């Protein structure tokens, strides 16, 4: 599968103001195995772009297609199939079930289409330092812990594309490194592409293809 961005411009951005962007109004093809780093300051549309690609919003002109399929024409039923098998996401706002435990949150995603056995939850939680939080309700966790829960949740399914929207904003350097290693490892297992949106270019992402919004 590949994702094609064809001259997409959010409805809320004037087309005159996109001349400096390497994404808006341009044609971009993202193939399996590629790593794309999208860098932009706050309010320039990183989250919008991630949501457009994931199919959560349609307020843009231009086309986004999964292979040859324009995603604006996909039904919610078809989207669910893509989201189970082809495309995974870490939301900026995390979107966790606050009243459920950490394990339950991760299990809800894992059971949908298990790529890993349940034991993998413990292993990943151990690597990211949240193994003691597995039985706790998510609402009792700190934002940084929640970010790590969202990261593990996104890695429980098969995918060809992983979308990351400022996933490390509340992580310290050590935990960022640990999380990034895990993500690289999991993407490698699947030969998956990674679309990583953040405020600035991260040190450990140097060498990746970087586009500015």
């Amino acid at each position, binding site marked *: 599968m590949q994702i094609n961005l064809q001259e997409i411009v959010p409805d809320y951005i004037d087309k005159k103001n996109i001349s400096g962007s390497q994404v808006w109004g341009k044609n971009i093809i993202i193939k399996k195995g590629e790593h794309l780093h999208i860098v932009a300051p706050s309010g320039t549309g990183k989250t919008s772009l991630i949501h457009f690609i994931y199919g959560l919003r349609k307020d843009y002109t231009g086309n986004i297609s999964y292979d040859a399929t324009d995603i604006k024409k996909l039904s919610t*039923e078809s*989207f*669910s199939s893509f989201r*189970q098998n082809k495309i995974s996401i870490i939301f900026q706002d995390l*979107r966790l079930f606050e009243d459920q435990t950490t394990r339950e949150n991760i299990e*809800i*995603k894992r*059971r*949908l289409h298990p790529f890993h056995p349940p034991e993998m939850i413990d292993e990943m939680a151990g690597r990211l330092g949240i193994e003691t939080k597995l039985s706790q309700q998510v609402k009792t966790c700190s934002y940084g812990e929640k970010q790590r829960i969202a990261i593990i949740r996104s890695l429980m*399914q098969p995918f060809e594309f992983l979308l990351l929207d400022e996933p490390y904003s509340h992580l310290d350097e050590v935990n960022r490194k640990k999380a990034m290693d895990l993500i690289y490892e999991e993407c490698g297992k699947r030969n998956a592409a990674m679309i990583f949106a953040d405020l600035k270019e991260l040190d450990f992402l140097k060498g990746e293809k970087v586009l500015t919004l």
Partner: protein
Amino acid sequence: MELSYKNIEPLIISGKNIFSKWLGYFGLGIGVLLLLFSMQMFINIQQLLKEKSPRKSGYDFISISKNITNENMGKDNSFTNEDLNKLKTYPAIEGLSPLISNQFRVRATAGDVIPFSTDLFLESIDKDFIDTVPPSFTWQPGQSVVPIIFSSDFLEMYNVFAPAQGLPQLSAKTISSINIILECSGPNGTLNFKGNIVALSDRINSLLVPKTFMNWSNLHLSGDTATRVSRVYIKTKDANDPQLISFLDQQNYHLNKDKVKFSRVKSILQNIVSALGIFGILVIVMALVLFSFYLQLMIAKSKDNLRLLLTLGYSPRWLTNSVAKTWLPVYLFIIIGALIITQLLHLLFLQFSFVDKEDLSFLLHWSVWLIAILLLALTVFINSGLVKKELNNII
């Protein structure tokens, strides 16, 4: 491990509205029970009273005659053509047939088997007005056997006085095998016929012979061609129609409503159980409305969780089916419970009512089962439709 509703169950918030859920279950149970029970009772009444009803094709047949008073005693109290025409044109009367009686003397004996003889009267009426007309109820000139339709009330009366007279009591079946000799005599001579009772009538209190026989014998034995009609049967949709009764009263006619009462009792009973059934349907509708409120509230409360599940990749179809399916065991329990209670009530009805148990099956009628299955399908269909609609609203 398979994806199951249990995993997402904690995310579907039922909230504090448990009362309306249980009220909905209770209402549905009561409604289904009322509907099934009233259907079974309707069928029971229909089957029990089927044989005895004088109604035919939804009509009441009633006998009218002129009131005999001290003033008109001894005068000609038969119906004139004018009287008959007036009756015919009255809107509530859908048909009439005069009872024509014999103008000659008839004496009946039962041969040597039963030492019994009596003077009789014979009457004839249009076949459409007789409740039981076997194919053998015909007569042609030259035929020595005359078929007779006998009033079942007369048979009952006979069986009451027969033992005191040293006569054998007779069943409805044996009476047809008795040979009656009809000795018909008039000014023009005497003729003997064999009388054969071919049927019993619940509706008409008389000894009915075919019209062809009555016309032929009146002409040949009495020579009197003028037909005097002292009784008329009318066919009407409702013998209890107050306007009809008032009209007949004004004409000074006597109305024999004994037979009609029976059908009215049956009709009233059926109306009561029908009303019960309609009430049951209303309760079911109300319960389903209550459910839909509960469902809307539940989905509204769980909106964020359901939306997140869809965002994470849960299929809308799977979610709809899973949420809708959670009620299936409840619906099954309610409907099977209502069927069991209906069956028990039906057995109690058989046990304690006056009815002849052979007339009714111990099991519920097939149509009651069918309605129960249809109700189950309907509730499941409505339920999944509602869930689908509500989920579509949040996508």
